[in-house]
C-alpha cells in the first residue's frame, strides 16, 4: 500500500516540479497559471544517464531543453585546418533551472553549434518547434507571449556576442600594436 502511495505522490511531486521549472524559466515567465498547465501538457520530460549526449554539434536540432535535475556540460569542437587536430572547448556548465538550444525553435534546419552532455543522471524538459507551432495554432495569444520572450532572449544573446566580438577585435588590435 505504501508503495502505491509513494509512487502516486512522487508523480504529483514530479508534475509540480515540471510546472515550477516552467514557471521559473524566463521564456515562460509571462504565462498565466492556466497557460502554464497547457504548456505542461505539451512539453516532453527526458531522462539522460551520466555521460549521455543530449545532442551533438552539427546535428539538426528542433528545440530547447530546460535542466530540471542534474547538470550538463556544453563543449564545442573547433576545427581550423585538416593538419591541425580538432580542439575541444568547454563552453559552459549548466545546472538545474538553466536552459539551452532555444535558437532551434525559430531557425529552419538549425544545426547544433555545440555538444551537450549530461554530467550526472539528469532530467530535462524538452520544448520543441512542433510544440511551439501547435501552441500558435491552438492558443495564439499564449504563443505570442512565448515568442516575445524568446525574441528578447535571442536579442540579448546577439548583444552579448557583439560585445564579445568587439572586445576580441580590440584585443587583437592591441596585440598587433605591441608587435
Amino acid at each position, binding site marked *: 500500500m505504501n508503495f502505491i502511495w509513494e509512487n502516486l505522490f512522487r508523480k504529483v511531486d514530479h508534475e509540480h516540479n515540471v510546472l515550477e521549472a516552467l514557471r521559473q524559466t524566463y521564456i515562460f515567465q509571462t504565462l498565466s497559471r492556466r497557460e502554464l498547465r497547457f504548456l505542461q*501538457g*505539451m512539453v*516532453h520530460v*527526458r531522462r*539522460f*544517464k*551520466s*555521460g*549521455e*549526449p*543530449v*545532442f551533438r554539434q*552539427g*546535428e*539538426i*536540432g*528542433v*528545440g530547447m531543453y530546460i535542466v530540471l535535475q542534474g547538470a550538463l556540460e556544453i563543449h564545442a569542437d573547433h576545427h581550423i585546418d585538416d593538419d591541425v587536430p580538432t580542439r575541444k572547448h568547454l563552453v559552459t556548465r549548466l545546472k538545474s533551472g538553466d536552459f539551452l538550444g532555444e535558437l532551434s525553435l525559430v531557425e529552419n534546419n538549425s544545426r547544433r553549434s555545440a555538444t551537450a552532455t549530461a554530467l550526472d543522471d539528469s532530467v530535462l524538459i*524538452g520544448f*520543441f*518547434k*512542433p510544440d511551439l*507551432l*501547435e501552441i500558435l*495554432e*491552438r*492558443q*495564439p495569444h499564449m504563443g505570442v507571449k512565448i515568442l516575445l520572450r524568446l525574441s528578447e532572449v535571442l536579442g540579448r544573446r546577439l548583444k552579448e556576442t557583439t560585445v564579445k566580438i568587439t572586445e576580441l577585435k580590440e584585443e587583437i588590435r592591441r596585440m598587433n600594436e605591441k608587435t
Partner: protein
Amino acid sequence: MSLTPSKASLKRANRWKLIGLLCVLAFIFAFIVLVENLLMSCILAFVVSYSLGPLVNYLERHGVSRALASALVFFAVGATLSLVGAWLFPYLGNSLYRLQGDMPRYISGVSQFISEVEGWLRSIAGPISDFDLTAKVESKLTSWTQRFFEHLPGTVKTFFTVMLLGPFLAFFMVKDGRKVMRSTAAIVPNYLFETALSLQHQINFQIGQFVRARILESLIVGLVTAAGLMLISFPYPILLGAIAAVTNLIPYLGPLLGAVPAFLIALVNGYSSLEIAMMAIVYIVAQLIDAGLLIPVLVAKIVDLHPVTVILVIIAGAQLMGIVGMIISIPVASTLKVTLTTVYRHLIDTRS
C-alpha cells in the same frame, strides 16, 4: 574504437529501447491490419480527424476547452450529416431501387449496343471467327449485377460498422491524439527523439494538408458535376455527382470511372448525340476545373513526388489493396519519402 563500459551499456540500453519501440509499432500495425474492418475504420478516422481538427482548433482559440470543442464539432457535423442523410438516403435508396429495376433493360441495351458495334465491325472487317461478343458480355454483366446485389447486404454491414467505428476513433484522435503521441514519443530513445518528433510533425502536417485538399477538391468536382447535370435535366444528378466526387479520389482512373454510369444511362436510353455531348461537356468542365484550378492550387504543392513515381505507387496500391490502395497510395508514398529522407539525413549526421 574501444568503448568505455558506460558508453557500451548506454548503447545496449538504447538498442533495447529501439527494439521495444519497433515491437510496439509492429504490434499496433498488425492489430490494425488483422482485426476485421479496423484498417478501413482507421483510414476513415484519420480522414475525419484531419478534416475536423482545424474546426476544433478554431473553437479552442476562442476559449473553449479541447474536450468540449471536440464534442461540439462532432455533434454539429454528425447532426448535419444525419439530416442530409435522412434527406438523401431515401433518394439514393430510391435511385438504387430504380436502378436495380432498370438493370435488365440497361444490360439488354448495352448488349444491343455491342451487337450493333459487332455488326458494324463485321461489315468492315468480315466475320470475326465464331466469337460471340454480345452473349459473352451479356452473361458477364448479368453475373456481375447478380453478385453486386448478393454482396450488397454484407457491404452495407461493413459500411455501417466502418461509419460508426471511424468517427468514434476520430473523436478520440482529435481530443486525445496529442497525449497518445506524447506517450508514444516517451519510449523513443534519446538519440532518436528529436528526429522522431520532427518526422512525426512533418508527416502529420503533410497528410493533414493532403487529406483536406483532396476532400475539398472532390467536393467541388461533385458539386460542379451535379449542378451541370441538373442544368441539362439529366437523370440521377445528385447520385451521379456523388459518384463523381467519390471516384475523383482515385487518381487518374477516377474521373473516367465517375463518368461511366452517366454514359451507360445515356447510351441505353438512346439519348441524342446533342444530349450525350452536353453530358460529356459537364464532365469535361468539372475535370478542367479540377486539373486547371483545383489541383495546381490545392494539391500539387503538397505532394512532392515525380509523376512517374505517382503512377508506379498507384499501380502498387491497386495491386495490394484495390481501389482503397489507389486512394491511399499517394499519401503513403509521400510519408515513406519523408521518412526515408529524414532517416537518411539522421544517418549522415550521426556518421559525420
